[in-house]
């Protein structure tokens, strides 16, 4: 192995030297942890400001913010923090909530939280709620209901494009947006469009079938 070459690059460490652990960051271990906690206290004690977003164009806003979100054709008011993600706002802050988009990876790496923002699929876990105000938002609930399924949703049902179903809202949303953009795709194009959505049960082949079937019906 080339490890020998590496020795010169960094001082030699004994394999089980506990002192090396000082480089490891404990969760909230003294020092920085204490400072962090104090900072949090300050933030949390701040009076909620019922600021319109317009305020944020001239001065920084923090604490609680009241926003209006345009979701599935409805104007919904919601109170969030600046750090609240759109996904969090939909799932937790809206009352009643929209829990179709799922929290799975929280890092923009799985697609289960996909929603449409001005018609385009985005990861709602990587959008701040404050940034979504003023945009036209569509969640899977806005595409159809169990009693009145959209064409794409029907195709997922008919082609068994789901198993546990946790990734399904994301796939349905992604596919729905893509078929609007490209109503007659090839299998390769469907795969490319779906590459930001991941499934663990292994429904991909049937998701592809469903997408192609839905495209033929539109």
């Amino acid at each position, binding site marked *: 192995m080339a490890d020998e070459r590496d020795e010169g690059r960094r001082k030699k460490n004994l394999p*089980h030297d506990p002192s090396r652990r000082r480089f*490891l960051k404990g969760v909230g271990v003294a020092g920085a942890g204490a400072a962090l906690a104090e900072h949090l206290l300050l933030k949390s004690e701040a009076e909620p400001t019922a600021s319109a977003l317009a305020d944020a164009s001239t001065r920084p806003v923090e604490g609680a913010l009241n926003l209006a979100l345009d979701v599935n054709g409805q104007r919904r008011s919601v109170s969030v923090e600046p750090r609240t993600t759109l996904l969090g706002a939909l*799932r937790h802050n809206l009352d009643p909530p929209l829990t179709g988009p799922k929290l799975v990876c929280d890092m923009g*790496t799985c697609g289960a939280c996909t929603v449409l923002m001005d018609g385009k699929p985005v990861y709602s876990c990587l959008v701040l709620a404050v940034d979504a105000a003023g945009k036209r938002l569509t969640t899977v609930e806005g595409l159809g209901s169990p009693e009145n399924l959209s064409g794409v949703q029907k195709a997922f049902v008919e082609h068994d494009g789901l198993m546990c*179903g946790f990734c399904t809202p994301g796939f349905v949303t992604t596919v729905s947006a893509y078929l609007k953009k490209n109503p007659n795709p090839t299998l390769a194009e469907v795969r490319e469009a779906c590459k930001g959505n991941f499934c663990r049960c292994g*429904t991909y082949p049937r998701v592809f079938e469903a997408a192609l079937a839905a495209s033929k019906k539109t």
Partner: protein
Amino acid sequence: MQQQTPAKKKKVKVPRVVGGVETMVEIEVDDEGGPEWGPNDKHTLLNHRLTRVDAPVKVSGAALYTHDRRLPGMLYGRVVRSPHAHARVLRVDASAARRIPGVRAVVGATDEEVVEGSNKAAGEAAKKNRTEAGGAEAAAGGKVVLFAGQPVAAVAADTPEVAEDAVRAIRVEYEVLPHVVRAEDSMKEGAPKVTPDPNEQNVEEREKRGDAAKTEAAFAQCDVIVEAEYRTPILHHSCLETHGNVVEYRGGDAATVYASTQGTFTIPSDAAQELGLKESAVTAIVEHMGGGFGSKFGIGIEGMLACQLSKQAKAPVHLMLTRKDEFLLAGNRSGSWQKFKAGATRDGRLVALRATQYRLGGLGRGSQAGQPYIYTAANFYREVFSVHTHEDASRAMRAPGHPQANFAMESLMDELAYKLGIDPLEFRKKNLKDTAYHRQLDRGAREIGWERRNRTPGGGAGALKRGMGCAVGTWGGGGNNQCKVDVTVARDGSVTVAVGSQDLGTGTRTLTRAIVAEELGLGINEVAERIGDSRLGNANSSGGSTTSASLSPSVKDAATNARLAVAAKVAPLLGGAKPEEVKFAAGQVSAGGKTLAWKQACAALPSAGITAHGEWKSNLQASGVHGACFAEVEVDTETGHVRAVKMVQVQDVGLPLNRLAVESQINGGMIQSLGMVLYEGRVMDAQLGLQLNPGFGDYKLPGSLEIPELVPLIDDEDKREAVIGVGEAAIIPSVGALANAVFNACGVRVRELPITPDKILMGLTKGGQTA
């Protein structure tokens, strides 16, 4: 009907799953009478392609998973994880956290609580969840944490954001202890001891079987001998819905727990113990759940902490693990390290095999099917050990121990076949007694075009090289007698089937409905099912592929009894026919030349309708399935990139209750194998003791561009008129098939999964061999 005479009894062995651990137990069941499925090709709904009855709510976002529960006054819980692989907890100070407005409960946050609370809980949960393990490794820790990610405290707050702040405001002081996270290091003399339990060593013997001396002597008869080591890394279940519960306890003497679990009935006792309630006072609800794959039995450490938080706050607590939590503390598929010496004769007989098998399950025992797996070796000897490391305990994961064993044994068989110059398919057949495999191998070979395989591994012009591989696998899939089902027919004709079982995405709701609808001659949407509720009839946990074979016989029995009960009431309207002569078909009830529409017939029922009960019937299920997989891949020999082109898997399953769902299961098995063979694996830093890829960006599940053409084939030559579970069987043979296809394509035998481009490229530069 035989109902009048006392039933004869017989003894049958059935799988029983406790905490995901499957053991065989002998039980007594009725030996006669009761319903039969009839020929597999004579069904009107079963063995057809049924769309899922829960699909409409799932495709529209209306399905409520545990993650989606919102209750009045609900708090959000989070766990505090140890950042150290091995450490003593000196002090936990939650004072700053408690001062944050909106923080409602903190547990495990004093010295006492750490000892008595979360660490005890961790130990208890580890025991319950450690489906492949026994012993007291995590529990024995006391104040000592034994893996990075082990919970040491938990908080509940008004919002997820405040809960996150509270986690970070809790100060934990640790005395860091030496750790070991690699098997090789753990086995070394003087290695840090993994658990404080004096009875538990880092390396523990699990099994010695076979005749060592005879096997050693038999190598002398062999024409070829292969010595090789194979490794597979720890894998993650990667359930898209993380583990967790919503515990609704508001004081008083009852509670409801919404759980993401594979065992509705594993929840109440666990929760009752934590909440200090009677088991009967706790209701578990599992309406929909987002994947388990063997990792979700019992309430888990996260559920115990949620109960403690809910009890402290007297408010509902929603505690779902974060994705990083899930990677670090929600169990894993054990890794493996298998060393072989194997020999065969020129005519293709496996004559001698010696195996040393290490199961790498962290704190758990891990699992690994004993070698030579399903092959027959005239002489064999194996030694099996668990090697412990400071990592979370392994749990059952889809066919525990089989994919690991399959990769190693099927690679070894391939190596022997090539060394002998025999077609790998023929070599397999010579060493497989059960002819079901021969049939399946022949069918798979036809389907993929086995004759097109690369005759010389790595042969052919150009950088892109294609190759094929094959492998076989087996599983049990029988049921047990735990399911109690009720079918109610109301006077208005509505039909409900109720049982507390759960649907993991396998199609439980659909098959339950379909059995009843078929029996009563109704459409599938004319029956409603109620499942996922511990107040309903008992059901087994979904482990060991036992759900279908446990549930469907009870449903069939209940449906049959319901049919007879309806018939008895309707018979007077049908010229006094005997109940068993009344026909139920196409929405009509008929006998003696008279026909009533279903609703007309039901009008004859008493005002309360009828309710019929069903119990398990052993004759309606069976055990033992076979599968064969063929894979074709393309390797770019200048970059090491592997593209899976096509996979064909033949699987027998007895009576396929729902062909569409069985095919989807086979697809899912092939895709999870694809992940295991080409992409997935936990990566640990040996010196830091930390997992480096605890997220879906770096732990790479296969995505839409990785999926080959998949051909799932149900082996209808299997004429058993009995239900057998197939979930786990489906993941096994494709592991060996893919690995062997890579060798056939490029001539590099990668003996350590996943087969990534770096290993292929380095193998090519070293002339085809990698470690």
